[in-house]
C-alpha cells in the first residue's frame, strides 16, 4: 500500500527557508505572494492492505521519527 506524508512547520514557528523562497520569488517579479512555507513530502510503500491499519502504522512512524511534533504537523494520505 502506498501513502504520502506531508510534514509542515506549525503556525508561528519561524520558517527562514520559506521566507528566503518568498523573497526570491518576489525578486523574480512574481506579484502578490502573501506567504511561503516550506515543508517535507515523504512517500511510503508498506506491506499492509488494510487502509486503517496502514494509517495507524504510519501515524506511529510520524510520531516516532518522521515529524518532530514540537515544531511540526503531519498529514497522512493513503494512496492505494
Amino acid at each position, binding site marked *: 500500500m502506498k501513502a504520502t506524508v506531508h510534514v509542515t512547520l506549525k503556525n508561528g*514557528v*519561524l520558517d*527562514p527557508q520559506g521566507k528566503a523562497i518568498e523573497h526570491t520569488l518576489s525578486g523574480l517579479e512574481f506579484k502578490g505572494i502573501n506567504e511561503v512555507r516550506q515543508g517535507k513530502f515523504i512517500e511510503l510503500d508498506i506491506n499492509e492492505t488494510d487502509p486503517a491499519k496502514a494509517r495507524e502504522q504510519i501515524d506511529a512512524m510520524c510520531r*516516532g*521519527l518522521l515529524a518532530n511534533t*514540537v515544531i511540526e504537523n503531519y498529514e497522512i494520505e493513503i494512496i492505494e
Partner: protein
Amino acid sequence: MKACVIVFPASNCDRDMQVALERSISKPVDMVWHRESDLTGYDLVVVPGGFSYGDYLRCGAMAARSPIMAAIKKHADRGGLLLGVCNGFQVLTEAEILPGVLMRNANLKFICKDVELTVERNDTAFTSGYATGQKITTPVADHDGNYFTDDETLKRIEGNGQVAFRYAENPNGSINSIAGVYNERGNVLGLMPHPERLVDSELGGTDGTPMFDALLNYSGKVGA
C-alpha cells in the same frame, strides 16, 4: 570518574572531546560506537558534535533513534552525568531527554565564530567552576543552532532554572537567547557552543576547561 564519548557516523568533534576530558580527569576516556547498548559503569557520557547521519530528515533525528540511545536514557534516569554539545545537543532534544528543538539559524547561515555566553547558574555539576553571571567565550559552529520551544515549555524551563547559558548577543534567533539547557534534574546539559575547543591557550583560550574540571570534582556525587 569514568567517562565515555559516543561516536555516530559523521560525528566529528568526538576526538576533541576525548582530549578535553582526558586533560581534566587524567584517565583514559572510552569511545563508544552507537551500535553498542550498554553504558553500565560510566559516570559521564558525552554526545559530541558533528553531523550525524548527514543531518538527514532533521539534525540529530537519526542518531536519536540509534541502539545506544536506550542506554543513554537509562544512564540519565539513574542520575548519571550526560553532556551533549552541538549535534549532541540536537540529538538529546530529538530523543526528548532535553526540552525544545534546534532549528535552522534565523539568518540561514552556517555560523562559525567565537561568541560570548553568560553562565546562568553555577550550582550544577557542569558549571561549578564558573561564577553565576560570568561571561565566557566559546566557539559556535553550526547551521541549526536556533533553539525553540513552545510558550508553555519556555515558561517551565525558565521557571525551573533550566537555562544553562545565554548568548550575550543572539547570533541565530534562539528563543530568549538560550545557548544551553539542563533537564529538570540538572544531570543532563546540552549546549550549542563548543567548550571542548577551548581547553588550551595555544588554541585560542581556556574558557572551556572549568567545565571539564568541574565534572571531575563532581564525580563522587553521581547517583547510582
